């Protein structure tokens, strides 16, 4: 019983750190990736604001960012992390690479969700004289909302995975805990407990995402 209490007190802070990292990384990744995805969708060929040059450039940037393995990206972004938060280690510093890594993913998720919206709806809106910006906010986004919610859920889960990796190189959180205790000290029980917490987190988020997606689809 004593051991259990120890374990819980051991897990509390890293769990909290993971939630903190994941929350803010999701927030920033979405803030960057969502508009990027919208711009990609509307500027691509046949889009409502077709502009091939813009699409090509953004498409290229997104592809390049996505082809970096996360660990490499983290190291590459150390200078940026130092610039933004003043340090390269710790949970707050991890938010920088996590956000940058997830942003292009969000952009792609948003792009594919918006692209699924029936072109007929966009046309019907255009036929009423709607401005492209109005079409984005009143047609594309609301119509894609269920897919967007599921995509965002996927993003959060991905960030949880990445955050564990970030933890392994000094980022704190459950990944850090698992590596320190499970890998360096062979305390398998701590490792298992950390994994269980992560599994529960992922399940809860997926469940909540599914429920929300169902709620917003008519």
């Amino acid at each position, binding site marked *: 019983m004593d051991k259990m209490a120890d374990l819980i007190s051991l897990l509390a802070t890293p769990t909290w750190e993971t939630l903190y990292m994941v929350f803010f990384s999701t927030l920033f990744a979405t803030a960057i990736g969502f508009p990027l995805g919208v711009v990609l969708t509307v500027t691509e060929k046949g889009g409502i604001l077709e502009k091939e040059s813009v699409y090509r450039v953004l498409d290229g940037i997104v592809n390049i960012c996505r082809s970096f393995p996360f660990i490499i990206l983290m190291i590459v972004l150390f200078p940026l992390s130092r610039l933004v938060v003043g340090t390269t280690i710790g949970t707050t510093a991890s938010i920088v690479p996590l956000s940058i890594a997830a942003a292009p993913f969000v952009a792609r998720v948003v792009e594919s969700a918006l692209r699924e919206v029936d072109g007929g*709806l966009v046309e019907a809106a255009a036929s*009423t*004289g709607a401005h492209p910006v109005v079409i984005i906010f009143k047609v594309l986004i609301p119509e894609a909302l269920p897919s967007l919610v599921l995509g965002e859920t996927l993003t959060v889960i991905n960030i949880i995975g990445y955050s564990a990796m970030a933890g392994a190189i000094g980022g704190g959180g459950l990944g850090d805990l698992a590596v320190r205790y499970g890998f360096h000290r062979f305390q398998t029980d701590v490792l298992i407990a950390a994994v269980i917490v992560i599994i529960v987190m992922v399940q809860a988020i997926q469940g909540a995402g599914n429920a929300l997606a169902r709620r917003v689809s008519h």
Partner: protein
Amino acid sequence: MIEIRNVKKTFRAGNGEFEALKGVSLSIEPGEIFGIIGLSGAGKSTLLRALNRLEEPDSGEVILGGTDVTTLGARDLRRLRRNVGMIFQQFNLLSSRTVFKNVAFPLEVGGWPKKDIAPRVMEMLELVGLSDKAQSFPSQLSGGQKQRVGIARALANKPSVLLSDEATSALDPKTTQSILSLLEDINRSMGITIVLVTHEMGVIRQICHRVAVLEAGRVVECGKVRDVFMKPVSSTARELLSHLPRRGYDVSQLPTERGKPVVLFSFNGDTAGQPVISRAIKKTGAEINILSGEIDNLPSSRVGSLTVQFAGTEREITEALSYIRSQNVVTEVIWNG
């Protein structure tokens, strides 16, 4: 008045080219229901969509309300589109919005003051007979109801032109009937010009005043519906007419006398046995002359059709028609000169 002058459109896909419109010219009178018919791929949708520039014509002019649509900048084009409603085969309702909000969409776009939107939406829903569905979502409606919402949406911003691309092609015959009657009513009560694309001669026959036949990107025939039906010139018109189901009358044999509409009645089930016509005569004083008719005894029910010619004052005829309609008889005016 809509003037289409020498409109051309070529699609380029990959290395191939396809000339969908090869110089189309038409003029459409204000307040008329103008049909555009043709076989699949003839360019009907392309032509219709050129009117509000959902499809950008390569050359030619489209004069709508005095302005050449093809020269408008983005901003003016949007303003023009607010004056041109459109309905679609697949309805294209926003699934994320209720019926009410769908109809409100063009009003939001048109910058209507908030307080005026709700009454206008309810007025439109009443017009199409869906007041009770205001808070439903499109997924909860039948095809016919969806198209009614489409019509309400298209008309909400008080356009002077309504474009219809195969609006009834996804609907069953009975629903098609009711949608066409609705369009006809709207045309009559609002004086709105309707340009209607279809591949069904039945639709043209039922509500159009004039029709253009499109064949491989060219207008091969254009004129009053009656004339095209009686003396089709183009092979396309003849072919399309031959697909028309036999309706118990021969189009070329119709007696066409001014003020004496020819109407086809379709009875089914219980109405087939009732003396609806003699009652209508007694009630209204209209004369109803039976031209031809048949009653089939199907295993489960009796169905019948009668072609009749009305005579009398306009008022008597209208009353007689509406009485007969009220008796669950499907009526179709075949000729009305």
